């Protein structure tokens, strides 16, 4: 079927099977390999992207349901002016505040969960999420990380969130 949607602000038009996963369309048809596949069944969150304003697992979204909507991926996080320079070695300054916070706190280790983690965090922040530890942990509970123990990820998100109650887990 013919589908049209916006990816990171740019219009895309494709002729693909309607049940093709958004994840495969991004990675294979559009070459946006920043979105990762960790399990293919909505358990790990590595393929998280923002569909309209909600974080979703791209492995669970058939492309027929994306027609006419907007998708934001990790490639679309940094300011547009800085993008394009990030291929093969991103430059300092090409990161948004959240990415920079992850870099400085140590929120990314092996990096495979990082794009999805960033998208879940971005959706939380865009929704007005505060620097509240329990709320941040809830917001990223659908994103598994095996490297960090989550401590530094929570710290990174809190750093760019609205002031809240860090250190309070309800």
């Amino acid at each position: 079927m013919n589908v049209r949607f916006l990816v990171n602000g740019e219009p895309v038009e494709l002729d693909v099977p309607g049940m093709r996963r958004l994840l495969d369309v991004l990675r294979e048809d559009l070459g946006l390999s920043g979105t990762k596949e960790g399990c293919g069944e909505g358990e790990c969150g590595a393929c998280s992207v923002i569909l309209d304003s909600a974080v979703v697992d791209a492995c669970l979204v058939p492309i027929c349901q994306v027609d006419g909507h907007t998708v934001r991926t990790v490639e679309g996080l940094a300011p547009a002016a800085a993008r394009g320079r990030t291929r093969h070695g991103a430059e300092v300054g090409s990161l948004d505040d959240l990415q920079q916070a992850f870099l400085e706190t140590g929120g990314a280790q092996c990096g495979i969960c990082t794009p999805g983690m960033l998208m879940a965090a971005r959706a939380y922040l865009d929704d007005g999420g505060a620097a509240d530890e329990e709320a941040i942990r809830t917001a990223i509970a659908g994103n598994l990380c095996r490297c960090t123990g989550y401590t530094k990820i929570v710290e990174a998100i809190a750093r760019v969130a609205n002031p809240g109650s860090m250190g309070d887990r309800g």
Partner: protein
Amino acid sequence: MTPGRARGIPLRREGPDKLTGAAKYADDLVFPGAWYGATVRSTEPRARLVAIDRTDDAFDWTKVVLVTAADIPGDNVVSLISDDQPVLVPVGGEIRHQAEPVALLAASDRATLREAKRRIRLRTQPLEPVFDPLASETVFAHFELTKGDLGAGFAEADVVLEGTYRVGHQEQLYIEGQAMIAVPREDGGITVHGSLQCPYYIHGAMKRALRLDDVRAQVVQSETGGGFGGKEEYPSMLALHAALLALRCRRPVRMIYDRHEDIAATTKRHPAIVTHRTGVKRDGTLVAQEIDVVMDGGAYCTLTPVVLSRGTIHAGGPYRSPNVVIRSRAVATNTPPNGAFRGFGAPQVEFAAETQMNRLAEALGISPLEIRRRNAYRLGDETPTRQILRESVAAEDVLERAAGAAEFDWIRERTARARAERAGSGTVRTPATSTSGPRKASGIGLALAWHGAGFTGSGEVQLASVASLELDADGRIQVLTASTEMGQGTRTIFPQLVGEALGVDADAVGIAPQDTAFVPDSGPTVASRTAMVVGGLLIKAARRLRSEVEASREAAGRPFAEAYRTWAAAHGPRRVDERFEPYPGVGFDDETYVGDAYPAFGWAACVAEVDVDLDTCEVTVRDVVAADDVGHVIHPVLCEGQVEGGTLQAVGYATIEEMKLVDGRYLNDRLATYLIPTALDAPRINTILVEAPFSGAPHGAKGVGELPMDVAAPAVVAAIHDATGVWIHDLPATPERILAALTAAEDVEPSPPGVSSRSARPTAA
């Protein structure tokens, strides 16, 4: 460009690429014209392979390539310690586990591949499988350590306590699955690109099975999304599979495991059964330790003897005991092979040793902190291998730091009072269908651990790793090692260490890709050895380069940082290779297992606080204080990251992570059924880094990766006991096991961890 610094510390070198999606993991690599590969696996735990058949319907087999054992140009072995594991089971050969590779398929698209795979039938003669490690007669390795006089020790003891502890399989669960792409070379060789820890393991395996030389076998690491040991030995198998298909197709072949295949087929942490008999004096002083360790290696040897060796040496825990016997064996069962996983045999035995120590404290009526103060290793003590601990012993230091930061004594008094108050109503009433008064109980627990730094025994000497530093004519400095980055920070700390040794900014030091065509064999990226051993070699190489440049005429008395560009322009490229030299005064006899098992040990203490829901026995690990002695902290942020991540893996091991098996097959081989902690399940972790430097390493570092994995599980189990009054001897300490310990009700307790049950249907004819 490098990402710069924050608060004076270099930021993760590849961080920006990972944070923008630019980093290329194996499945992100594009090879035009590549085919997709798949593995045909056995579906029986043990059988004779009679034939590999293709269904005779109208399927067009010319569209696919089928590879069997008969197509292997070299030896049909995945070369490692023992030559027992075939690349593919040959016709006539024995299938030894449910997920064993039997044939390979490749096709230009995944739909065709799927169709082809459905049409392969294995003809087999079933054989009787062995699942119980205690009944297995196939022994991969065994050890016995003896010190002092055990009989005399027990005769002297006031209290003798016995205990049996069992732990199951744990899945590494790197979030990036196993992935390898093989590309045929014009010279008839193969280049593989993949997610891996040890380029030269794969290189060796390819040379052997594919009959290739050093050049025609090439291994290139792509960005690697976690390893934890799971990408130590298994990638050799996957690389051979991809390579065999690529040789046959004459085009690139992608072998990317989905999560289901990854969990079903790849290695796990070894299950173990550990039995302790311990004699203590009334004041808590250890006088005798008798320990038996049985590990289940699964169907093939893999790294099992080395895992068992580390498990044996660590089995007594970080305590001096005059009289010790440790007997261990690792056996075969018809289950998928077990292999490397962070901690490498130590987490299993240290869970047992620490739980035993906590039970001893309870039996003697002294505090868990006090019994450790009495017995923890100090300088000059002798270990079960009769190694004298001459330096860098920080057991007491980490213990006091962790206990102090966690306010262990004070909180334990509080939980004890609460437990006494609850005792009136009983933690679980009769009938067990009814709840008691309070719904929640809190507990605090403590554990202490040691972890031998680097390879066991003469491992490093035999390995003779090389690390290199290159200064080219344009004045570019580059690190050349085979040490891989998989999240732990190799790519950041190597330039940092070299920069510090040369007196230049870390940003001025480049790092070569992990490609066997360019980098020397600096050994595998395992055993927490990278920062200590390879980092140490690089510092030595840098010091040599620095003195050479600074002593030169061109330098004219200027420091390296000001002189090296001029020097390089005048002298042309210079490469310094540094080969591992034995640490002075460190010796080990591999035959008798006597001597310095490790050049030094790292030390870790952990205090865990839990809340237990008394209705459901659900456990929340709320807070953890982790004090880890790493010798020298190179990069505080990365180092803390290792402790936090390792601690959470250990908390998962303690509470929820367990593979369940029926007929030798993993039942929970999906992410919906094998669960690891989410951010909501993770405790708040307070990391305390302690530095007791090791003099053999120029920077004093002893490694950090595995330490936290050894210590958190027994701390959590002790905290569960503090909350509920029951000791859980089997990991994970699930709500089912806790409730079973609290009640006499039927059918509550699950089967023991690590042992496959049998389905009602007979599996053998």
